[in-house]
């Protein structure tokens, strides 16, 4: 692809949400801004597919000199952003419409919401395509700020509390990430690079020359920093609060995409650090945090009362699994981790949407008050079940494959004890998660309710995701396989066992 075309591609990708946001600000009419945002999200989706097909053929896209750089790994992150962005916007129409109808939000809120959504999408889109790790940090920080605004949309007590915690913890965490980034930059400079010292391409190119001790410290800062944003325990504490209090489409984006973006940062630096130190060092750290995350998630899910908090903990678990896969390494582990990123991004929004619809119907998020979803909302209930079973790694749904790969790589890399512990945690999570889920879906509703699935637009986004969940369970298109394979090669430093 020649440079002009790639410049235009990147520019239009980034302009789409920006223009969308501006149009929202101009029109301020609920009907119009909904349509504007939906069309901008679908445009993004189409453009991402275009970029993906280019990546599959040409491996990389570079634009604006060296400022933007997309490789297969970036593309793998781009895919969930666009998909989840699209379905979230689609779902928002119904969800926010209902909130609007019952008077929970007014016109001003709606405008602010859609503005925020566009900016949120924009900032996330920059993360995987920028070459500059400093810019990446800035945009990740920007996502925090935008999402804080989205979370405190209603100014309810809990929302304010969640937003406050999220803001403080994420900001503190990301400041670590900045320190780490600067350390890496410094290592790059001291290794003699000057041109593109902050660029990923330059960094990975020079990584063999870095000072090992510096890289060790730097990676610890990166891990804790982006780890906070990615929800790795014990820095995950903001996550259940923020995810449960945000408006549902935002929860879906936070959980399905934002966490991946943060993990993306960790993995990029993992590659660099592996270049310097060999992968054993960062693998070890990733595995430690991953096991802690999975364990804490298992423990927290059992005692959970709030549906969305439970889903948030499940995100913690999945982020743990991704970093576990990266940490275990090998083709299986890394491939599994990347698949897990995609699969999680498909399944988790499905669950959030379903739980959002359910909590709108039942007017509560407290699980003990929700019974008999399958009777009240047959379609939503079925989709809820599909999503739930997918989340706990039940075949024939998609996450089974990625978990299978990750755990296999654990044995392959000789981490028997860790793998067994994780398997035990996963079994516990399975039990406790499904216990909650099944108790909600089946049984008899506490009060008599009309059978109603809350509108087509609530169901369609879920149906899209659910069909992906099922299809990816036993069929992954060749193109995607190639893409993920290339991405794994990148993470593995080009050499695949």
């Amino acid at each position: 692809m020649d440079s002009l075309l790639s410049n235009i591609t990147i520019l239009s990708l980034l302009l789409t949400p920006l223009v969308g946001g501006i149009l929202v600000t101009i029109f301020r009419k609920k009907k119009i801004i909904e349509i504007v945002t939906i069309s901008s999200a679908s445009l993004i989706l189409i453009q991402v597919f275009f970029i993906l097909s280019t990546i599959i053929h040409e491996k990389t896209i570079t634009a604006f000199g060296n400022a933007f750089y997309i490789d297969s790994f970036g593309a793998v992150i781009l895919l969930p952003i666009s998909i989840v962005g699209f379905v979230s916007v689609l779902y928002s129409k119904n969800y926010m419409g209902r909130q609007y109808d019952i008077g929970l939000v007014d016109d001003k809120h709606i405008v602010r919401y859609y503005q925020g959504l566009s900016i949120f999408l924009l900032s996330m889109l920059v993360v995987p395509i920028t070459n500059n790790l400093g810019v990446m940090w800035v945009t990740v920080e920007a996502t925090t700020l935008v999402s804080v605004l989205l979370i405190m949309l209603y100014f309810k007590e809990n929302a304010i509390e969640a937003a406050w915690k999220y803001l403080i913890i994420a900001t503190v965490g990301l400041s670590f990430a900045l320190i780490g980034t600067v350390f890496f930059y410094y290592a790059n400079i001291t290794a003699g690079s000057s041109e593109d010292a902050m660029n990923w391409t330059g960094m990975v190119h020079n990584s063999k020359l870095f000072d090992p001790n510096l890289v060790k410290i730097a990676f610890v800062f990166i891990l804790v920093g982006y780890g906070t944003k990615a929800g790795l325990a014990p820095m995950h504490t903001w996550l259940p609060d923020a995810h449960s209090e945000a408006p549902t489409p935002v929860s879906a984006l936070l959980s399905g995409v934002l966490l991946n973006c943060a993990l993306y940062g960790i993995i990029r630096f993992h590659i660099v650090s592996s270049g310097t130190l060999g992968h054993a060092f960062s693998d070890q750290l990733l595995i430690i945090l991953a096991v802690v995350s999975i364990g804490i998630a298992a423990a927290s899910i059992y005692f959970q009362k709030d549906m969305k908090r439970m889903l948030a903990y499940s995100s913690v678990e999945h982020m743990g699994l991704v970093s576990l896969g990266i940490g275990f390494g090998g083709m299986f582990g890394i491939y599994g981790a990347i698949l897990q990123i995609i699969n999680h991004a498909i399944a988790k929004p499905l669950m959030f949407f379903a739980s959002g619809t359910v909590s709108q119907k039942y007017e509560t998020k407290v699980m003990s008050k929700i019974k008999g979803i399958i009777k009240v909302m047959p379609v939503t209930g079925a989709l809820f079940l599909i999503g739930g079973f997918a989340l706990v790694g039940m075949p024939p749904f998609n996450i089974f494959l990625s978990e299978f790969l990750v755990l296999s790589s654990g044995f392959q890399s000789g981490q028997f004890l860790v793998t067994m512990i994780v398997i035990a945690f996963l079994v516990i999570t399975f039990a406790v998660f499904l216990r909650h889920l099944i108790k909600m879906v089946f049984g008899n509703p506490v009060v008599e309710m009309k059978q109603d699935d809350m509108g087509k637009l609530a169901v369609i986004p879920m149906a899209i995701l659910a069909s992906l969940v099922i299809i990816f369970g036993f069929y992954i298109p060749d193109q995607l396989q190639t893409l993920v394979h290339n991405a794994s090669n990148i993470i593995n430093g080009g050499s695949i066992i």
Partner: protein
Amino acid sequence: MIENLILFQIVISLFLGGALLGLVSRNGRFARPMIFIPSMMGSVLTVLFSIGVIMTKSLSWTVPNMLPFFKLEIFVDGISAFFMLMIGLVSFAISLYSLGYTKEYESKKRISVFGFLFNVFILSMILVAGSNNGFFFLMFWELMSLTSFFLVIYDHDKEENVKSGITYLVMTHFGTALIFVSFLLGYLQTGSFGFDSFRTSSPSFPLLVKNLMFVSAFVGFGTKAGIVPLHTWLPKAHPVAPSNVSALMSAVMIKMGIYGIIRTVFDFAGFGASPDYSWWGVLLIIAGSASALIGILYAVIERDIKRALAFSSIENIGIIIIGLGLSIIFASYHLTALSVLALVASMYHTINHAFFKGLLFMGAGSVVYATGTKDMEKLGGLVKKMPWTSLLFLVGAVSIAGLPPFNGFVSEWLGLQAILSSSQIPSTVLQLSIAFASLPFALTIGLAAAAFVRLFAMTFLSKTRDIHMPHIQEVPRNMIAGMAILASACILFGIVPFLGISLLSTAFHLPSQPSSPFDAIALKNNDSTSFANLSMPLVAIMLSAVALAVFGFIRILGGKTSKTIYGTWDCGFGKLNERMEYTAASLSHPIRVIFKSLFKPHNVISKELFVQTNPYMVKSIKLHSTTKNIFEENLYNPIISSTLFVLDKIRKIQTGKINSYLLYIMLTIILLLIFVRSSHA
């Protein structure tokens, strides 16, 4: 063979078609045929296909490129085909039965979901038996668990049903995790999850790996099969499922656990003919004996028909496992002929159990269909109102009690002979322990007869105990036909064991094969004197000849006499009614007393008095007797509560205080920095 492949593909598409038809169908006249006729056709073709495979040669089929790393490999050899044959036969009968049985659901809920799950469930079992790759095996395995779970909680209005379902799902998932570990060990050795590579390189695995593979697979598959103490899901899930589903689960699905154990032992775990492996067999025999005995003991005292049948499944799985264990021990001492004998006994019992347990669950389903209750204490007297059901149920009961000339006897006979042959093992310890193990085995057989006398008599004989029972009538014809198919299979496999044995020996490529249907099963001593012989066709002929002869003799001797119908002798009391009958609880009372250390019965007597001050004027006395589940109380509850205790401590870290959260971050970074410092080069 290409025809087999096409047949197999047709089978898959039939079940998938049935599932899809189910999904699109609406309750109505055509809903049930749309669902069950494809599954019947699929089952018939499965039977044809598996016979084809057994007769001709194995089928292998690979579908590449569906998923990264793993190819969908199908490999159907004799063993798989044997299990597929079982699935096909039983599911044909059950599909036919379901055509009538599911009518009662039509008014209550969507039959379409049921149809979808039912078809997928059968298909997943077939694919489990056929898959040749660890990944896909586990996938179909879990699909099987998942669909059966949804079928179990199909009546999800009752919270208790859903709870049972969750227990089932969680336990089976635990099992899957262990199976996965077993495959992982194989993967670690071979670098592949393909069963072919396990097969070829397993003999060279280190002994430790083999042992670990075996143990984890045994526990994993054992959970599905319902081996004590991993059986607790079974008596919970089976009773709450719709009866046709219980029939499928009990008759076929739990056998997939047996299939897995066989595959693991003889294919993957690198079993070798050396005494090193004899402890595998010992483990199996111990587990099997415990399952058999405990299963049947609970079955004897149970008052819920379907629970009793579920416990009896545990017992039968125990018997099968004992047979397998013996086979392993014999094989590890190079006693090939005996190993074959034990294996045949075990597999024969497997297929027999599929027949009679399917039949019995369908029978129980018919009872539920007609009366609406599963409680033996309320039933009784159905033999007059439901003659066909009771006759077929009786066939099942006699078969499962291991009595001639039905099929259960043949397999138990073979099992007993295998135990008797243990004297040829060159190890006194093993000889003695197997001899001692025959004690629970024989006790089980004795108790099984007791349990099924009780089950049949309480359900079908005497007067209906619940006087408020509505009008009861015989179930529809297709349900009876479904049961009749399995009943005739029971009789056929009892009277002509040649069928089963030649099937088995062809499927498993056993060295000795019977030549004609009338050959006796003959076991020889070393000096070629007969150790034992059994010719079931002749026994059947003799039985009928003796019956005819004595009928003639008595008739000639006594001439024609008349029969008078009169009330049962009541010592002149004159008001013998339903409440004075022997109840199910009192019938099994002696056994409950004898085994009270296991059951820990607890009696509560509550009296209602006419006048509170006068204890002698009693209006009514109620005895409430409960037994304890020792496994739940002594094994599961402590494990669960201690796990929860730990989890509770862990989750407390989410205190709600932002300060503590920030502290975690601070501590994490400091600890990690210290960690880095300590790992400085």
